């Protein structure tokens, strides 16, 4: 039976690698083939066509797209991430500078969001119908409906402009002490937590609620089990798969949140780098950033799938 688990996990990994390959195709061809001329863009509108075609040649843009795709993929795999024509630096060094900042932001957010959202969702399910449950559900549906930039701007207006407690921007000088760093992180992390926890609360509560109406939970109740034993002992072990799935899904939202939050607070992360890259149409930079983000996302989704497989008692 363990062989079957290994086979399924192997299958999931193969699918993840295939997906990453297809994603790379999508990213490359969307950025390269949609109308919009990089050379023209770099030189500005007022340039002659000769100058543009010359630049295209130096950039290698005149060769067939499929060839350039394989060069790009080969480069990605060997660590050669290309050259940013806009900032005149290798993409690798730009990314190396920014990636740790984004990872810190995401990691801190996840470390707070996952335990917070799951426990709120589970407690709401335990006390289903109570005031606590209704309050949590109402807050969650509001947070799902509010855009991150609205939460961010309102927080800035309140905490930075009105109360003047926190800095409005999160640019952290390297010499800053811990106090400054923590202060700088409070608002971006709060916005991200608000943004990503609501979906997780709703989905985990729904997953438990689904399990709560099964005959085996009713049986537990007829054995005299308390509400918390029914939820924690019987419903929860059978809801691992949907809950883990909800966490993975929320990560898509978290990434969207990171893009907004880094822009609002001028946070020196990878997402801000990419947004700037889009404004300047810095294709090598955009392609690399996309692949990094998709790579992380796929790792999380695959990890969730594997946990779900492992939690299925029929495979034990």
């Amino acid at each position, binding site marked *: 039976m363990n062989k079957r688990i290994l086979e399924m996990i192997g299958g999931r990994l193969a699918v993840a690698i295939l997906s990453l390959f297809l994603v790379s195709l999508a990213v490359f061809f969307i950025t390269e083939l949609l109308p919009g001329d990089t050379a023209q863009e770099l030189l500005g509108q007022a340039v002659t066509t000769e100058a543009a075609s010359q630049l295209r040649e130096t950039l290698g843009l005149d060769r067939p797209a499929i060839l350039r795709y394989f060069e790009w993929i080969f480069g990605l795999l060997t660590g050669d991430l290309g050259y940013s024509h806009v900032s005149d630096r290798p993409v690798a060094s730009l990314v190396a500078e920014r990636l740790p900042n984004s990872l810190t932001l995401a990691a801190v957010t996840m470390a707070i969001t996952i335990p917070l959202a799951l426990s709120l969702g589970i407690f709401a399910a335990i006390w289903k119908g109570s005031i606590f449950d209704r309050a949590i559900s109402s807050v969650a549906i509001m947070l799902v409906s509010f855009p991150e930039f609205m939460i961010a701007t309102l927080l800035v207006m309140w905490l930075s402009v009105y109360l003047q407690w926190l800095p409005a921007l999160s640019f952290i000088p390297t010499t800053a002490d811990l106090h400054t760093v923590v202060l700088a992180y409070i608002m971006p992390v709060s916005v991200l937590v608000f943004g990503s926890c609501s979906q997780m609360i709703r989905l985990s509560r729904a997953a438990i609620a689904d399990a709560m109406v099964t005959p085996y939970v009713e049986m537990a109740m007829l054995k005299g*089990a308390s509400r918390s034993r029914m939820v924690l002992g019987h419903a929860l072990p059978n809801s691992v798969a949907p809950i883990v799935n909800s966490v993975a899904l929320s990560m898509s939202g978290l990434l969207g949140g990171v893009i907004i939050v880094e822009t609002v607070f001028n946070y020196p992360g990878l997402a801000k780098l990419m947004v700037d890259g889009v404004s300047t149409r810095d294709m090598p930079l955009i392609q690399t950033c996309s692949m990094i983000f998709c790579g992380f996302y796929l790792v999380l989704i695959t990890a969730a799938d594997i946990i779900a497989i492992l939690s299925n008692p029929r495979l034990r």
Partner: protein
Amino acid sequence: MTKYPKTAGETLVSIEDLRVTATTDSGRTIEILKGVSFDVRRGEVLALIGESGSGKTTIALSLLAYARAGCHFSGGHVLFDGVDLITLDEGARRKLRGNKVSYVPQSAAASFNPSKKIMDQVVEVAEIHGILDKASARDKAIGLFRSLSLPSPETIGDRYPHQVSGGQLQRLAAAMALLGDPELVVFDEPTTALDVTTQIEVLRAFKSAILDRGMTGVYVSHDLAVVAQISDRIIVLKDGEIQEAGKTEQIVGAPAHPYTQALISAFEPVEAEAAGSRLTKGAVLEMRDVVAGYGNMKSDGKPHIIAVDGVSFALQRGHSLGVIGESGCGKSTLLRVAAGLLPAASGACVLDGKDLRPQVSARSKDELRKMQIVFQLADTALNPAQTVGNIIGRPLTFYHGMKGETRDKQVIELLDMVRMPAQFRHRLPRELSGGQRQRINLARALAAKPDVLLCDEITSALDTVVAAKVLELLKELQRELHLSYLFVSHDIHTVRSLCDEVMVMFGGKKLETFAAADLHAEARHPYTKLLASSLPTLDPGWLDNLKQDPELVRKFAHA
């Protein structure tokens, strides 16, 4: 249980004028129990008999101070040892459940938590109520497993629920209910989901457990014959009211209430027509050496999982062929193969002398028209988004090109044919009762003007009295329209009352075919005899007197 006379003890439970009300989504309230009163005395087993919607399960759950979501107690008392359970708070109710009153569910397969080991769930009762420490609870559970004659009692608890059979799970659920030495055990249709051969093993285990302990029990069932084997007294319920209450012998021997009499009459033996009493006019449907199954083809041209393995039969024109067997024997798959829904891997299907292609898409409209399939569950066999008129009308348009008023007239005629009023054509399936839906299901098949009806357990999901009426309708239709039936069922009684010939299947293979009247002949296959003898009768001594070859049971029963 006349053989073990007991002295009736003092009253343990007294239900007085119990009323339970349910609220539907649209805010309407329905009375599920309309004032029910009865007593349960210590040391007796009381049976609650009734069809779906009679309120029997609601009463059973009220003994655990529980009303399902959407229902609430709206009046009366449930006095357990003098304490009114309805007035207890949630904490006191928890102390009662599993400890003083315990519950054996209908489907143990669904009632065991799939992700926890069986033993952990069985001893959980002791853990919740602090009755025993873990080690002695385990020992006690193993003792219970042994007394319920479960195989390898020492280790069966270490398995997960999906690793043991349905009959074993049902007994494990009983062990779980007995672990806390409750004063009252509530059995909620505990053998309904089982095959007949398995049911006997489970019933025997229950009965000896009840007798050994002098247990007080409430046994809920729709099956009078099962209840006759195990109970001392019977209460007959209908639509939330008690129709009749009395000693088991009186209820099954001399029922006073007309409703009870109707229930009993469904058990009266029907004499099958003697073999050869009807003329044969040649086969209308024939299948030869049919092999079919699921999954990819293997190198030998057979499917990965074989469900039907080399079955042949011939259905005579105007006759009925019954196919019986227990769950998983391939009888329903055989029907799907005949209808072309599951293409056969090999073998021939001949309709009216013409070879049919295996898959439905390759058959001509006229071939399809001649053979119609009727499914077991009318709830899912009728499109919930279409009115009855459209459901019956579609085959008229599809096969016969009827439209507008002609079609509407034909629909009304078909409704009349299945004994339903014309205005029902404007209703949606959810606005019909189970029996009515099954009639619409039939009418849709008849709309095609078929020669052959493929009937898949079409009376199994219906209540006894309703099922008997549908069977009667089938017989009338056969006479009027010269239909031929291929009638699949797990119930040998039903098949015998309807069919001319009977085919017995086991493990995908045909064991034998014989004239329905010869069911009890000496020459029958041992498995056929086992099936026939496993069907409970109203005689309260039936289970005790039943002798079955244990070797045979081991070979064929899934227990």
